[in-house]
């Protein structure tokens, strides 16, 4: 029996919207490279009694992207609170769209590895707030070994659109192509500057590999899904997926069981 290994990849792309102010307050969105906590207000700091006022422009841009992705657009906006405790999250909840996203059920055609056109289904596009950033005092900026941590809320409350694809991508090349098409689309529509290095377009990949009997097509086994983060370029996305797929194949081949987990791409060492 010969076996084939088929990668199954879905991407979650966070796009920082090209608004002048944040999603629920009037703080300037031009925060990149500015002094820590220079772009904050009672709203995005979550002070008691401060209330969110939706930035209409952010909604417009999200709808524009949703239309371009052939999504169904909801005629009302609904927001939910996603609760978790972390020092970069000022209200201890993120205002997001959980049950009722602004746009869902879309499609984007990409050029697949063999040159044919391949439709990739878009699950949903929703609006949400970004979190702030923590800076740790250790020499390498990481939490480990740091004496102190500092919180910078300039990014907190920035308007994001999260675009979630179905797991329709089956190679690192396709994933790269899909991400490139999304970036091109948001840039062309002036929805976002799409700059991956600045973090205004961030790609997280969900990847697993299925083991298939090459003759019958029967699925023999699945590897546990891994979420891979921290890819700062399209090249990094492709490399991280290549690495991750290899890891999953080897595990499947040797019968090792993988845990479902979140992994971070290390660009310097080329590992997740």
């Amino acid at each position, binding site marked *: 029996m010969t076996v084939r290994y088929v990668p199954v990849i879905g991407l979650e792309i966070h796009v920082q919207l090209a608004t002048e102010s944040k999603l629920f307050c009037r703080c300037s969105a031009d925060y990149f490279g500015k002094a820590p906590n220079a772009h904050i207000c*009672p709203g995005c*700091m*979550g*002070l*008691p*009694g*401060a*209330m*969110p*006022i*939706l930035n209409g422009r952010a909604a417009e841009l999200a709808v524009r992207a949703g239309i371009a992705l052939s999504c169904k657009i909801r005629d009302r906006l609904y927001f939910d*609170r996603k*609760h978790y*405790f*972390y*020092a970069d999250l*000022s*209200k*201890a*909840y993120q205002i997001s769209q959980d049950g009722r996203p602004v746009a869902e059920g879309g499609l984007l055609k990409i050029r697949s590895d063999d040159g044919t056109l391949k439709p990739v289904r878009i699950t949903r596009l929703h609006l949400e707030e970004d979190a702030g950033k923590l800076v740790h005092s250790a020499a390498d900026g990481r939490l480990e070994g740091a004496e102190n*941590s500092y*919180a910078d809320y300039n990014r907190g409350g920035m308007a994001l659109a999260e675009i979630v694809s179905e797991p329709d991508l089956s190679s690192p090349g396709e994933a790269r192509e899909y991400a490139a098409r999304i970036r091109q689309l948001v840039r062309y529509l002036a929805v976002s500057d799409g700059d991956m290095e600045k973090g205004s377009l961030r790609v997280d990949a969900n990847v697993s590999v299925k083991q298939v009997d090459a003759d019958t097509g029967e699925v023999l086994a699945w590897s546990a899904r891994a979420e891979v983060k921290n890819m700062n370029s399209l090249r990094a996305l492709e490399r991280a997926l290549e690495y991750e797929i290899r890891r999953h194949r080897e595990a499947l081949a040797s019968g090792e069981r993988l845990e479902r987990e979140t992994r971070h791409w290390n660009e310097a060492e080329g590992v997740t």
Partner: protein
Amino acid sequence: MQLYELSATEMARGVRAGEFSASEVLESCLGRIEEGEGALAAMITVTAGKAREEAALVDGMVARGEDPGPLAGVPIILKDNICMRGAPVTCASKMLENWVPPYDAAVVEMAAASGALFPGKANMDEFAMGNSGEFSVFTHPSNPWDTDRAPGGSSGGCAAAVAAGYAPLALGTDTGGSVRQPASFCGIYGLKPTWGLASRRGVVPLAPTMDQVGPFARTAEDLALILSIISAPDGGDGTCRPGQRPDYGAAVATPSLKGKRVAAIRDLEGLSSLLDDAVLEGLSKFLDLCRGGGAEIVDVSLPVTVEFGPPCYHVLSRAEAASSLARYDGVRYGLSKRGESLSELYTLTRGEGFGPESKRRVLMGTWVMSGANFDEYYTAAAKTRTLIAREFDEAFKGCDIIALPTAPGPAFIKGTQGGERMRMANLLTLPPNLAGLPALSMNMGFTGGDKPLPVGVQLIASRWGEAELLNAAAAVEKSVGGATVASLPARGKEGEAR
């Protein structure tokens, strides 16, 4: 007659006419606060200096022939969960004990622009959770009609202050009865407006889908006066309804009950054994006065509300409280305990910063939102709430006002939480919060005995029906009179020590 005994309307008229000054009004009220605080503990912070500056500004305007506005020189007490620059907004919690907000609440801005003065912040249950004032982490407020008794809660300090003549007006918040129940216990007016009528910007949230700022007053006319100021539209609160408000002043100027349909709730009859006789007498007195004024007395049935209102409220209010209180983590402001790790910082800060009731509600709220409980409890309660709102919509097709007791009995003895009967307290006041409706409590007489206690009646109208409530209250007030200022007890030890 002392200046502090005047109504807000009379104070503003006198100040605008130059008959007396805002400073004189303020000093009279500050004197009353000083005299009463030893026994009442109605206040957390007295901001005499700030209020004196405000009074001087008002007097300066009058001297120059300018009009300070319809609240000229009127002192207004603020519940200590309403932000005012220059004073802490403690929420009666260790968590915010020393936190001074960098802004005024919208309702404070509006009242200030109309010439009001702000002599201080009133005691309350911690983060507005409680019905006696006894969950304040500071002192426990007392009822001016009998200092062994609670003034009610959570806005107990506001109600005690207005009843005792500290000020003719106070602003509290009402999430499940926190304005109306203390108003009833202290023998004054309390109004919870329709959800979305008054801006909540700068008001510390408890359960955002139910919270409303609500005024306390001793006359229906004053209630209309303050409502007409604080109900202005506010673009800074996305839930505050835009557009024109009715003329509340007109509603109390020529009140009439002719042709009004006033309804009693049929389903409450089965529960009358849980209600104090004095409370039931108050309700029938109110209905009699309405009938005498030309109203038609009808009845309505609210079976879903009566049976499912309390559990629905308990689930939703706790879920929202857990969400609202999540931000107090010691990272950015308020109490902060240093820990070895982030999770230790959270645990120490929240462990020490929250009192027992806050902790209970955070735990319950988190539980009903966790995993499978979310659908079983939260979603079920949210659906029930829609049914309750519809049931009221149906009921208001057959009536203009629904009348019921505000609380199951008069003020209870401090330290008892009212016992068995008070478990009913929520049932009577929470339905308007669930349905977003306006509701008003007014005094309907006193109990007998050597220390008579006030008894209240509650009126509910359909959405945006505040004018309907004010009209009815003003019409009935013509027969029963406005609330009287409670006389202060002889100075206790604390008072003498000052």
